[in-house]
């Protein structure tokens, strides 16, 4: 007979902040927006504010009454769907659906042949794209490296997008130089959907935009925000405060300030064109007080990001979080520890996009091997997230009785069915000592390197159709011409 009054927890459940704490942070952020305000270095933005209930003083200091803030923040869609260029990969950005992906724009790469650190180039980005296209646990792609071997740095973003598209068919998050850059990227992406309106139904990328903490918004960031609002391009306004330097040294204070920054952007886009798909974000970390490094491996980064995710879920906004990254200079034990712990925490928090997977050297250096290692980590983490099923088949009472004391389960049909739901490592070694010796005493690092080699040798993504390829190149050529003047 089925029972009544039962609560079944199908997955683990995790949160950092209680609802009351979220309300405290939200309320404090409203006060910041209303009393302290934020600066906007952009004419149109200031005009939009002046023509609203907001107050602009001191040239560019904007304060907004909380009634307007609360109206604006409710206007963003609660979910965003993204589709890769071929339609094969789709992801949903919504509460508690966790997608993992890379970060962007790393200036350096370890050359896989010489082992030397050198500047990242176009081909490095294509290779990172191919790796991400292959890896089953990476769901979206940011450029990983920054393309530097281009004629004009002011249009690097178009070339970079091209390199990304070449290698990867998964949805993307894109950085761009300015509003003009975003426009080109958006035009390029629209080609895969056959039109502007069609594109809106199936966007391929999210634009990455950042305020300057504390509470400043520069011209290019605002340009991108306004263009996104106009065209309904999904966009994240993701503060990068360093606790103790550009934000309070307390996690709560940093969260209050970051939320104010995001909500200010919400108001601006509301005034421009309500309803822009907005993703909350923040690489909320600490400035290491010995080295002055903006830390990508600090536990505070994970803690504050998970708390931020709690806030985002309460507000009904998708969340851009951080994991799989490290301050270590190479792919060593430190890298593995920091990657694993940050991925796990971000996963439990239920953030929509967990980015910077594969960053080493505090966001300065790129490692393809790190992507491969993190794929395995994320596989394990997703397994731990599956929770425990307690239906009859799973309690296995009948089976236990049938096998009885002293019996064995290896040959039972129940085992044959259910062991397939376990996590099977692709790279971790569980063999016995003798076998390990016979097979060459390989370390995890050796196996990661071999797997990276294999993917680069074998995996080719579906090519871009010739006609679209030409049109993409035309957009890039036109940008080059405009900027060479």
């Amino acid at each position, binding site marked *: 007979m089925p029972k009544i009054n039962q609560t079944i927890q199908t997955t683990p459940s995790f949160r950092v902040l209680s609802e009351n704490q979220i309300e405290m942070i939200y309320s404090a952020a409203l006060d910041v927006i209303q009393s302290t305000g934020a600066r906007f270095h952009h004419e149109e933005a200031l005009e939009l504010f002046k023509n609203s209930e907001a107050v602009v003083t001191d040239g560019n200091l904007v304060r907004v009454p909380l009634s307007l803030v609360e109206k604006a923040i409710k206007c963003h869609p609660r979910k965003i769907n993204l589709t890769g260029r071929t339609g094969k990969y789709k992801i949903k950005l919504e509460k508690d659906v966790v997608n993992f992906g890379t970060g962007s724009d790393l200036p350096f790469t370890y050359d896989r042949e010489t082992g030397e650190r050198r500047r990242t180039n176009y081909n490095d980005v294509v290779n990172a794209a191919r790796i991400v296209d292959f890896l089953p646990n990476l769901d979206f792609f940011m450029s990983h490296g920054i393309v530097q071997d281009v004629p004009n740095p002011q249009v690097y973003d178009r070339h970079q997008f091209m390199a990304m598209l070449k290698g990867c068919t998964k949805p993307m998050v894109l950085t761009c130089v300015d509003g003009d850059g975003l426009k080109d990227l958006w035009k390029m992406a629209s080609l895969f959907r056959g039109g502007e309106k069609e594109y809106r139904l199936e966007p391929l990328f999210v634009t990455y935009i950042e305020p300057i903490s504390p509470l400043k918004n520069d011209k290019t960031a605002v340009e991108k925000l306004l263009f996104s609002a106009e065209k309904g391009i999904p966009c994240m306004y993701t503060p990068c405060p360093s606790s103790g330097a550009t934000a309070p040294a307390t996690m709560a204070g940093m969260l209050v300030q970051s939320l104010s920054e995001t909500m200010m952007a919400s108001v601006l886009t509301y005034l421009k064109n309500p309803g822009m798909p907005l993703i909350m974000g923040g690489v909320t970390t600490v400035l290491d*007080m*010995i080295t002055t490094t*903006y830390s990508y491996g600090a536990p505070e980064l994970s803690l504050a990001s998970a708390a931020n995710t709690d806030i985002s879920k309460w507000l009904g906004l998708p969340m851009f979080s951080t994991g799989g990254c490290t301050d270590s200079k190479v792919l060593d034990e430190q890298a593995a520890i920091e990657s694993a712990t940050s991925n796990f925490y971000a996963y439990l928090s239920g953030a929509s996009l967990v980015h910077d997977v594969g960053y080493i050297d505090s966001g300065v250096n790129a490692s393809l091997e790190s992507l491969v290692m993190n794929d395995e980590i994320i596989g394990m983490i997703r397994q731990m997230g599956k929770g425990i099923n307690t239906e009859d088949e799973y309690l296995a009472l009948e089976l236990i009785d049938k096998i009885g004391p002293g019996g064995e389960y290896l040959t039972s049909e129940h085992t044959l069915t259910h062991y397939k739901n376990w996590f099977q490592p692709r790279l971790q070694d569980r063999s016995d000592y003798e076998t390990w010796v016979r097979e060459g005493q390989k370390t995890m690092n050796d196996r990661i390197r071999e797997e990276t080699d294999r993917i680069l040798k074998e995996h080719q993504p579906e090519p871009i159709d010739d006609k679209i390829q030409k049109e993409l190149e035309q957009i890039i050529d036109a940008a080059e011409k405009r900027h060479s003047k």
Partner: protein
Amino acid sequence: MSEKLGKIADGLLHGKIDEVGELTQELINDGMDPEEILQKGLFAGMDVVGKKFRDCEMFIPEVLRSAKAMHAAMEKLRPVLSEESSSKAGTVIMVTVQGDLHDIGKNLAGMMMEGAGFNVIDMGIDRKTEDIVEMVKKEKPQILGLSALLTTTMPKMGEVINALKEAGIRDQVKVIVGGAPVTDDFAQEIGADAYAPNASIGTEKALELVKG
């Protein structure tokens, strides 16, 4: 009077900003040789700070409090220092080049240099090459510190150095460069005088450059 020197050194160590400023003024009023205040009070104190920082006994927030105290003392002392002494604690212009908005590292490096006794003029972020050259002409600093955090703005550092040459003032100022994507090789390529991967090495290099 020498007791006050000890108090200055101790005040620096403990980041007592007001106290260090006041004690410095008192010693000047007492008629002590400014050079002695500088060497035996301020530099002596900051040497200990530097050592404790290297040994991880002091952290950045404490070091910057000490630097602020140093700055407060130098405000009082600079007007009465001889020309020779004041060039040891010369002027530095710190600026982030055009197109670049990153300033945390530049600010930190500037504060550390204040801690070493330099007079730091902060030109802020995203500054045009012409403006930087104008400022160098106007302020005649011993050192120009350029910061760039983007591969796309790094070339502007070379542009500034060339513009200094064109203005005929390249030999009047030492240029030191820094920022995450900047390397020693790059600094040499563009003809900078020094490169620093972090604020404390930046301060050491700046001190070396003014010693000549």
